[in-house]
């Protein structure tokens, strides 16, 4: 399995099989796409605040172009930002390091999955430039709008959209199998499944959920492409097909997908939380079981996206029940995080601030989801900005707050240095403030009845009073984008100017801190062994307030509780 360090530039930095290089490739591609997705957010928010005006940097947006902007904003943020950064980027960087492996189980397959993903990125960007414009059927791509050319006027834009998403699924299927195999099979001696860091657990469950949920949508996407290109009628009522079939296939994947993104984010937070509260995680096994049960439940909630879609109304009750019940494992999970802070010794770093803010904000997203989950309330709330605000209050903390937390925390393992904390605090304060400024007004707009994906709310009398809120929200998104400037500068400048980090700058316990920063090719100087659970912070008695997983026990000093409590 071992492979020597490659010499040439191309093998080392471009077609590399090293999981850390591939992780950086995923992350940087994802961050680049985040800028694109952010620009689209700016474009659509500007149109909503000042309909019909020329937008700085883009000009006037025509109504069909607005649909493309909305569609591609959603698609890119979910499939080309969240997935590559959270699942593939952090997964690639951390899973092998945390289990003490020298690389992924299948390094060449790993490289292949990145380049398939890269190809999908090219395809989705290319879709902006084809005649007829980019896909405009929403990120959910419901047929018949997406299923025929004449319904939307978009031909190649939609075909390329389907192709790009399909390629992306293939990339993450291969990548997911690799991550699962690595996490389960490549653990160092001494590391049982119950000694895995939470991040690895959550990444594993996320990858498994993705792998099992995406299949039906792959079949569904093939049918959509056949409908468009060859005139089959899978979704055409005139041919005996049913548009709702696609919705089922889409949301059978689409809802679990939310958890595919959420779980790695929670994993990142778990690591950061323990390291900076200097405290072991509260209820390790309880958390793992809550994640497993949430993963299982996620397969039986999908139709809550379809309460008013024409679904048999009798199905609303069972899906409403499962939906509201899935709040329970996540409540347990968040309560465990909060309980971890009890009697802690909290070090406020930028990474910790993002994690704590993620908890605080995600709860807003979580509780507002209960309103959507009630079928009766959903009659009013469905397809309004209330839903938009709700899922941004879940997804922005997941995708951005957790990612930032992880980047500030593991930057040493990426580039060997620390990021600048001062700039980091500016970044945090700006992001936190402007995020809330962007989305709180949208809750109010949603309650006014503002429906989604309209290019000009002013033509509706009942929305005219909301124009002030629209402007506020748009100022928020502009501020949110501006707040990323110090981060982008910090990210690149710290590669050369950052303070050298050393092996374990945060005095953390998991295996990635056993090796140099950045880890060399092959990761560890010598084979590692896990001697205890992942979070032995502040064990009873005197001595240092952390005992790493990789530190051999010094017979006399080792408190018994340290091993047995987390491992049993």
């Amino acid at each position, binding site marked *: *399995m071992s492979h020597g360090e490659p010499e040439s530039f191309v093998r080392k930095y471009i077609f590399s099989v090293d999981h850390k290089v591939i992780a950086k490739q995923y992350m940087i591609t994802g961050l680049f796409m985040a800028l694109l997705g952010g620009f689209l957010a700016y474009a659509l928010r500007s149109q909503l605040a000042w309909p019909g005006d020329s937008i700085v940097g883009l000009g006037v947006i025509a109504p069909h172009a607005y649909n493309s902007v909305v569609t591609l904003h959603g698609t890119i943020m979910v499939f080309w930002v969240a997935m590559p950064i959270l699942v593939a980027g952090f997964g690639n960087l951390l899973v092998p390091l945390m289990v003490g492996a020298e690389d992924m*189980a*299948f390094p060449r397959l790993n490289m292949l999955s990145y380049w398939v993903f890269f190809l999908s990125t090219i395809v989705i960007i290319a879709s902006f430039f084809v005649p007829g414009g980019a896909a405009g059927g929403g990120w959910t791509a419901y047929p018949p709008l997406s299923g025929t050319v004449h319904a939307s006027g978009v031909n190649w834009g939609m075909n390329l959209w389907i192709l790009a998403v399909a390629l992306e699924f293939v990339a993450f*299927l291969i990548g*997911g*199998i*690799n991550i*699962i*195999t690595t996490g*389960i*099979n*490549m*653990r*160092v001696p001494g*590391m049982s499944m119950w000694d895995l860091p939470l991040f690895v657990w959550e990444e594993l469950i996320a990858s*498994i959920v993705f*792998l*099992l*949920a*995406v*299949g*039906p*949508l*792959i*079949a*569904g996407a*093939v*049918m959509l492409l*056949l409908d468009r290109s*060859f*005139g*089959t*009628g*899978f979704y055409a009522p005139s*041919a*005996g*097909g*049913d548009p709702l*079939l696609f919705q*089922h*296939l889409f949301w*059978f994947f689409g809802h679990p997908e939310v958890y595919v993104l959420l779980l790695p984010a929670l994993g990142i937070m778990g690591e950061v939380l323990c390291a900076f509260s200097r405290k072991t995680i509260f209820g390790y096994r309880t958390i793992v079981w809550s994640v497993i049960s949430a993963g299982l439940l996620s397969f039986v909630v999908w139709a809550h996206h379809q309460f008013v879609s024409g679904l048999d109304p009798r199905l609303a009750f069972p899906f409403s029940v499962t939906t509201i019940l899935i709040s329970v494992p996540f409540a347990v999970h968040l309560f465990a995080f909060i309980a971890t802070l009890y009697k802690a010794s909290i070090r406020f770093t930028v990474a910790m601030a993002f994690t704590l803010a993620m908890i605080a904000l995600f709860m807003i997203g979580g509780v507002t989801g209960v309103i959507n989950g009630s079928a009766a309330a959903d009659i009013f709330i469905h397809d309004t900005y209330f839903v938009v605000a709700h899922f941004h209050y879940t997804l922005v903390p997941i995708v951005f707050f957790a990612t930032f937390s992880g980047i500030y925390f593991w930057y040493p393992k990426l580039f060997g240095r620390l990021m600048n904390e001062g700039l980091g605090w500016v970044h945090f304060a700006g992001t936190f403030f402007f995020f809330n400024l962007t989305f709180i007004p949208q809750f109010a707009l949603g309650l006014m009845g503002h429906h989604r994906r309209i290019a000009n709310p002013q033509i509706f009398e009942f929305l005219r009073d909301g124009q002030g809120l629209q402007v506020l929200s748009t100022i928020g998104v502009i501020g949110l984008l501006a707040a990323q400037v110090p981060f982008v500068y910090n990210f690149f400048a710290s590669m050369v100017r950052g303070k050298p980090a050393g092996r374990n700058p945060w005095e953390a316990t998991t295996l990635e801190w056993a090796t140099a920063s950045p880890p060399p090719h092959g990761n560890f100087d010598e084979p590692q062994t896990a001697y205890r659970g992942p979070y032995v912070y502040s064990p009873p008695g005197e001595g240092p307030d952390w005992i790493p997983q990789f530190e051999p026990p010094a017979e006399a000093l080792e408190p018994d509780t340290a091993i047995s409590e987390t491992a049993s």
Partner: protein
Amino acid sequence: MTNSAIIEQPMETATELPNSRMAIWWFLASEVAIFGGLIVAYVLVRLHHPEWGEYASHTINAAGAINTMVLLTSSLAVVLAHQAVEEGKLEKASKLLLTTVAFGLVFLAIKAYEYTHELHAGFTPVTNLFWSFYYLMTGLHGLHVVGGMIAMIAVSRSVRRGEHSARVECVGMYWHLVDIVWIFLFPLLYLAS
């Protein structure tokens, strides 16, 4: 362990399952999800269309039945190939894999005959939704057969050279899945009326 010299020793893993076997299990799980989604979609749509029974009667049951036998027999050849690897008879394993490939070719030839016959009779993928599903599902399955054959030719060559003998098991498991999927497709598309 008399054959340890020629049999590839899998890397030691935490679960004692070789990485390749674990990965192929998860890969098969994702394949099951794809075909499972397709089959469930087909069944649900069909429940609303009792008239599909009549369309299904235009499929060639005999050809489908023969193909079922062909695939089952080919699966036996793969099992024997795996057994031969365990016994260290790599040459034999390689030949058995090529036998499987030959059965795959027979399957595709019969399938091609069916398609030709059906297209000539005027049943194209856009005739109606039943035929759309028929061509989509058998076509996707056929692509999996082709993929399996290509993989088996590659593995057959490397096994002959004494390399990657563990891969025989992987292609074998994949081939069983292709077989099992067919066992679901045959009654659903040909027989049910």
